[in-house]
Structure formats: structure tokens, C-alpha cells
């Protein structure tokens, strides 16, 4: 349940950055100042699509899987925590790569990307705990 809630929270910063890429949101609200630099850099595009759009798709998928895991039918199904660990593990790796780019290549920080990276790490830990609990 908590993972689904965190995934839903994470969906909004991703949507915010995606709406910015679409031009719906004007200037990014950014206390540390580098959001726009990061989001207009060449690394803000991945496989031809904005990273923010990938983020939206990722959080929607994660939310759907986590929500499915709360149903009575799948509550005892170990495939759900395994899928969550796989998804969030991938998320941690990709967020780590993006954070490296911010620190070492772009030399600017996007606070919303950092928030997303933290949420992904939290969900990864929660998924591991859920997987461990499912073994019992």
C-alpha cells in the first residue's frame, strides 16, 4: 500500500517536468536554480522521448503493480514483490545515472529530479522489505 502511495506522489513531479517539456508549465519552480538547465540539456531526452515522460510512464506502471498487489487475489502472490523489486531496482540504477549526469556532466541540480531519485530509493527499500516479508 505504501509503495502505491509513494509511486502516486512521485507521479506528480514527473508530470510537472513533462508538462514543462510540453510548454504547458511556463517557468519551472526551482529553489536551487538548475532545473531548467537540466531539463533542456541533451540528457533530458532518452530514446527519443523526454526523460520526464519516461518518468510518468514508470510511476504509472509502478503504481499499477503496487496497487494490484493490494488486492486480495494477489496479496499472497510473490510475483508482485518480485516485480516491484525489479522495477524499483531499475529505477535506482537509472536515477543514479541521472544524478551522476547532474553532478558531473551538466553541473546543475534539478530539485524535482532529486526528489524523484529519493522516492525511488524509498520504494526500493520498501519493495525489498515486502519481498522479505512474503517469504515468511
Amino acid at each position: 500500500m505504501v509503495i502505491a502511495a509513494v509511486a502516486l506522489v512521485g507521479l506528480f513531479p514527473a508530470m510537472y517536468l513533462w508538462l514543462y517539456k510540453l510548454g504547458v508549465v511556463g517557468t519551472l519552480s526551482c529553489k536551487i536554480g538548475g532545473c531548467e538547465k537540466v531539463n533542456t540539456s541533451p540528457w533530458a531526452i532518452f530514446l527519443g522521448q523526454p526523460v520526464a515522460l519516461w518518468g510518468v510512464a514508470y510511476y504509472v506502471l509502478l503504481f499499477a503493480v503496487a496497487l494490484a498487489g493490494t488486492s486480495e487475489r494477489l496479496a499472497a502472490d510473490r510475483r508482485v514483490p518480485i516485480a516491484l523489486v525489479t522495477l524499483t531496482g531499475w529505477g535506482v540504477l537509472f536515477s543514479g545515472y541521472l544524478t551522476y549526469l547532474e553532478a558531473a556532466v551538466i553541473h546543475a541540480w534539478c530539485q524535482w529530479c532529486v526528489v524523484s531519485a529519493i522516492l525511488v530509493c524509498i520504494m526500493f527499500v520498501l519493495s525489498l522489505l515486502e519481498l522479505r516479508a512474503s517469504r515468511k
Partner: protein
Amino acid sequence: MASPNARASKKQFTFLLIAIVVIGAGALGWAATRSTGGSEAIDPNLPLGTAQGFLMGSPDAPVKIVEFADFECPACAQFAMLTEPDIRERLVKTGMVSLEFFVFPLPMHPNTWSASNAAYCANEQGKFWEMHDRLFYTQDLWNTQSTSNPGKKMMGYATDLGLDMSKFEECFDSKRHYPNIKASGAEAEKRGINETPSFIIGGKKYAGSIPYDEVKKLVDAELVRVGKADTTAKGAK
């Protein structure tokens, strides 16, 4: 069947999700519609003036690079600071290339209008490129995130560049170039440009802050295409 505790927990969970959605959607709605401070609003009925490119280098150069950029766009500043000095020094000064700059004000950058206005007014005194450089190198000091009164900064830059301030102020305050700035943006759209910076080299479009080596490759290919490949051998690296 689920126990009463499980049902209550499920109910709380549903409320939590609804609360997240309501708060998140509200925040997004606010972000999408919020005012950008005191920055000026551009009249949607502003008439279209004349699209004007600002040329650097010989108009007879064998390769023409046309740039569409927004003064407030960080990637454009990155290009201006990292790539353009090499282009000027190695390609424009050697006569291989001419660089034509069009402003392309994007809707998410309200202060770009002031900056473009300052560049057009500086151009009236023959200092477009000096103002162009100053604007890109100091972008973080006057952009929408930094100030709602970019005009004050523009006046400071004009003073620093030694412009005739009475003429500059008259031009800046009159906003007489706004229709031309709008026309420049319309020109970009007409040519299918939808992001900044974008470049047209040899009739082909390229988007993003291209590094110098890539620009050089494109220029060399264009020199071969127009039959001036010998310029490449003698020219800059």
C-alpha cells in the same frame, strides 16, 4: 471475506490516494496557471513586423549557419558560451561560414522579450553581438527565475556597452521592435523550428546545443557539397 480491520485499512488507503491525487492535481494546476511575477504580458494581438536575422561574417561565405535561439533558454546560453566562440574564431573569421541569428521567444520565458528588445535596440547602435554575448553570459542574473524587472538589468548592460543611453532608453521603452521579435518567432515556426537552439546548415535542421566538432563536420560536409572543399583543407581545424 475481509475482516472489518482490513476493510477500514483499505478505506483509509483509498482516502490517502484520493488526497494525494487532489493535492498533486491542485499543485500542477497552480503551476500551469500561475503568474510569472511582474514580468510583462505580451499582447496576443501584437502585429507582425519584419523577421530580421543578425548576420556575423561575410554574406558571401560558402556555408551559412542560421540559428534560432531564445535569450532566456539555458541550452542557447550553453551554445553561445561553449561552441560559438570557436565558430567565430575558426569558421567565421576564416570566411568559411556566416552566422545569422534569429530570436525565437518561447512562451515559457517571459523575460526573453525584454532581452530581445535590448538586443534589437543595441543593434540600432551597431552593438547587437555585444549585447547578445552579454545577455547569454549573464542569463542567470536577469531570467524569469531571478527577476520580474529585467528592464533594469538591460539598462545596466547598455551602459556597460557604452551605448547612447537616451537613444537606447527611447527605443527600449517604445517597444517598437516587439512586432519584429514576434515576426522572428513566426519565421522560426514557418521553418518548422520547435525548440531552441535550432540551426539550419546547408538547408538541414539541427536541434540542441551542438558541440563545435559536430558543427565543423556539418560545415565540412556542406563545403564538399557546394564544391568548396579546398577551403576545408586550408581552413581552420
